[in-house]
């Protein structure tokens, strides 16, 4: 459930593969290409405007597992969604609970979002 609190606005996080992440991986996970590909958040443009987040501006994402700061960019996302490419950055936010399947909630967990 999305909503606002003093800690920011609660949105839904999905992670996933991107072409840039796949290409960057071959350069090495310490490479600029890989880090640029994975250390970014994509958001709906209207959500960004409402939360006073500028395109390229930094946001703080917080979940029950941890928090991370990333640059935010407007992407083709419906309102309420945040997309972060798979990688070590977003995994700070992903809880290890797998509901008895082995699979953590890489898609669909709640994160609080606010300008950093």
């Amino acid at each position, binding site marked *: 459930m999305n909503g606002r609190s003093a800690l920011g606005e609660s949105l839904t996080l999905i992670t996933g593969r991107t072409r840039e992440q796949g290409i960057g991986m071959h350069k090495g996970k310490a490479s600029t290409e890989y880090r640029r590909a994975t250390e970014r958040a994509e958001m709906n443009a209207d959500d960004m405007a409402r939360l006073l987040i500028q395109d390229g501006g930094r946001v703080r994402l917080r979940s029950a*597992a941890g928090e991370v700061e990333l640059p935010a960019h407007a992407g*083709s996302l*419906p309102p309420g969604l945040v997309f972060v490419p798979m990688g*070590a950055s977003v995994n*700070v936010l992903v809880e290890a609970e797998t509901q008895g*399947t082995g699979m953590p909630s890489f*898609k669909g967990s709640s994160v609080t979002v606010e300008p950093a």
Partner: protein
Amino acid sequence: MSTTVEHVACTFCGCVCDDIAVEFEGTRVVRLRSACGVGRGVIDEHDPEVRPPLVGGREVRWEEAVEAAAAILDQADSPLIYGLSSSAVEAQRKAVELADRLGAIIDTTSSVCHGPTGLAMQAVGEATCTLGEVRDRADLIVFWGCNPSASHPRHFNRFSLTPKGALTPNGRSDRTVFAIDVRPTGSTKQADHFLQVDVGADFEVLTTLRSLVKGNDVGAVASVGGIPVDRLRDLVDRMKDCRYGVVFMGMGLTMSRGRHLNVSELFSLVSELNEYARFSVIPMRGHGNVAGADQVLTWASGYPFAVSYARGYPQFGPGEFTAVDVLARGEADAALIVASDPVAHFPRAAAEHLERIPTIVLDPTPSLTAAIAQVVFPTAYYGLDAAGTAYRMDNVPIPLRRVFPSERPTDEEILDRMIEAVT
């Protein structure tokens, strides 16, 4: 003077494209033909030079590293073997043998990929086919919760969208394509019809589709999971009227709320559609030989992932013997990671435990897991430095050749040495 090696298989993703041409000048790659933007990097960035293994960050002889790894595994009460999806079938067999020998837990990257798909297959079965059949016969394609344009860039051109086949002589115009996803992507743009589903609502949509296929009245509901029911009716009509339908499904179903229940619902829908048309489903397998890891572990133990040999016989336990759970609970006291990078790809709470226990890594490329490991073996890259076998996403085995004149030991050789060295 250059030489060209034809029909090289790229082992990066589950398409295992085996039509790549690599042109060499000496040992240097000067030209690649047919590789996609993602697969290109596998070959372009490959460094075949033999590098020595590391123990505690110190370069050592291979025998010394094998002894150090064997000592770690011998001392452990509950070792975990994990990864395997970017290694050849021949090495995967050795990893299972080592797990059996040690009484270890063995799990593959399937558990954070299509593990839930495996659970669904066990529950309701899987009506499936090969990618060759898709190319030659399928006239209705549905992509559900997957984005091949990013993850499997040549899938569209080789198998599912544009190729001309025996019963699809006009290629793209002989196929109707649906994409179902929570957001527009490069793949949804390729589809004729894009149905945008609410996050976590796939199960409800699938249940509604099953109901509509049976001809049930779904009442006065206008939309389900954000999709107008009229559009779902249109999809069902096309599914029942097509000649040969295929659903490609991905992490949008396995990683979202419902996980294996989503996939079971989809597999059931596909089975039921066979009353009206030929219909199949193919999971979009990510790593080049993750399908092989499922095959090998199933041949050897009866189960596709999450297997414990602790009691001397294989036990299956998703949630119990899956790597994320074992690590997050702090249960493993040593880890052997084969061709995988859980420090980069696991939730932090699970990845952190690998830094607390002695970890052994076999990997041709540097990784975040290798950076924290006690013992690192820079092994051969399968399909480049080493021959072997990889299973494509449709479970067709593809033979791999040695393309580079490298002397790096293979995962299979190192694992074999470990089997000999452990007590």
